[in-house]
């Protein structure tokens, strides 16, 4: 069967699906994997700009599906990783331009050549979501520690279970250690208790993420980034390596706590 198809989805928009897709793709490429990313958010193309590949697009996903070009012709090679490619979304069409069967057919072709085919799903639970999930061997659900994102993640997990694609694994994105410590944010334990699925990664909130998107260089290439490290660990776990989850609420040290206590907080 060859390569593995991994779909990244969330239900709610704006939780960091595209950033996650770009970073996991780059992290896998850095581990010498052959990777192709597919932007399945037809009509709202954006994985290309996060990856820094927006100026090289000739053909897109709909061109491939409708037979105007070969998959190879629509694949944009990454500047730094010769084995990392992107198939961009079409901008002038909508979700109905592609069917779940089209996605299965395309990924079956790509499986023979690549180790990982990573699909960036659109938000929502409609046609675009079904297209993205149809060919998946594994589904990663991205959520944030917020009531709206967790509720939507639960809904998506339910839909995945109903389609025998579930329950999938969870990526908790934008966790803020200081807020969790103060009890003002759902902790990773709270979220896994609620959703009852396995956690594949906890990505801390990191101010380096937006500058890296600004420059089109995914943050996982920055060795000083905590979020980048979390994405590298997720990539290793996807490859079957047993990388323990590093607890986010790591001890700040007894002295700091005492100092905080005497500072009145």
């Amino acid at each position, binding site marked *: 069967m060859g390569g593995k198809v991994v779909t990244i989805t969330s239900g709610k928009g704006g939780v960091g699906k595209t950033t996650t897709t770009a970073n996991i793709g780059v992290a896998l490429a850095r581990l010498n994997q052959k990777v192709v990313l597919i932007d399945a958010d037809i009509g709202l193309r954006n994985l290309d700009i996060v990856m820094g590949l927006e100026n090289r697009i000739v053909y897109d996903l709909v061109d491939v599906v409708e037979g105007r070009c070969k998959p190879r012709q629509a694949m944009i090679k990454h500047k730094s990783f010769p084995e990392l490619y992107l198939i961009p979304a079409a901008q002038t069409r909508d979700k109905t331009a592609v069917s779940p069967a089209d996605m299965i057919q395309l990924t079956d072709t790509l499986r023979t050549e690549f180790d990982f085919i990573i699909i960036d799903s659109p938000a929502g639970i409609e046609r675009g979501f079904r297209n993205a999930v149809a060919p998946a061997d594994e589904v990663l659900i991205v959520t944030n520690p*917020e*009531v709206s994102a*967790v*509720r939507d993640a*639960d*809904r998506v*997990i*339910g839909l995945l*279970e109903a389609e025998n694609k579930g*329950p999938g694994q969870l990526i908790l994105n934008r966790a803020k250690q200081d*807020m*969790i*410590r*103060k*009890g*003002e*944010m*759902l*902790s990773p334990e*709270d979220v896994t*208790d*609620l959703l*009852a*699925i396995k956690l594949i990664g906890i990505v801390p909130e990191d101010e380096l993420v937006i500058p890296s998107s600004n420059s089109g260089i995914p943050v996982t290439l920055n060795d000083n980034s905590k979020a980048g490290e979390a994405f590298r660990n997720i990539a290793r776990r996807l490859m079957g390596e047993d990388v323990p989850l590093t607890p986010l609420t790591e001890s*700040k040290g*007894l002295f700091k*706590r*005492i100092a905080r*206590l005497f500072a009145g907080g």
Partner: protein
Amino acid sequence: MPNLFDRVFGRSAPPGSKKSGNMAKERLQFVLIHDRIHLPPEKLDAMKREILAVISKYVSIDNDHVDIALQQRDRNSLLIAEIPFLKTNEGIEEEESNIKTDDDL
């Protein structure tokens, strides 16, 4: 009141206020249970009343100690009911006579 030990180890909530993280978890626990089985709280209450009405036709129920609630086991939902009966013979006889009148109608 949290003691000094708890504060040093960062384990306590400040007195008098419930942390919003816990509120989020409790609210989600409640809403997810209903989302998963597509049964809003009012409908669940109506179902409970109907279940109790059916049982009451046959046995006297100790209504003060009834506990019917949805529970989660992993991602599966189940209804757990604890419905104790009244011990008094009088109560049961009364209920039986009610059934007879229902049948007569």
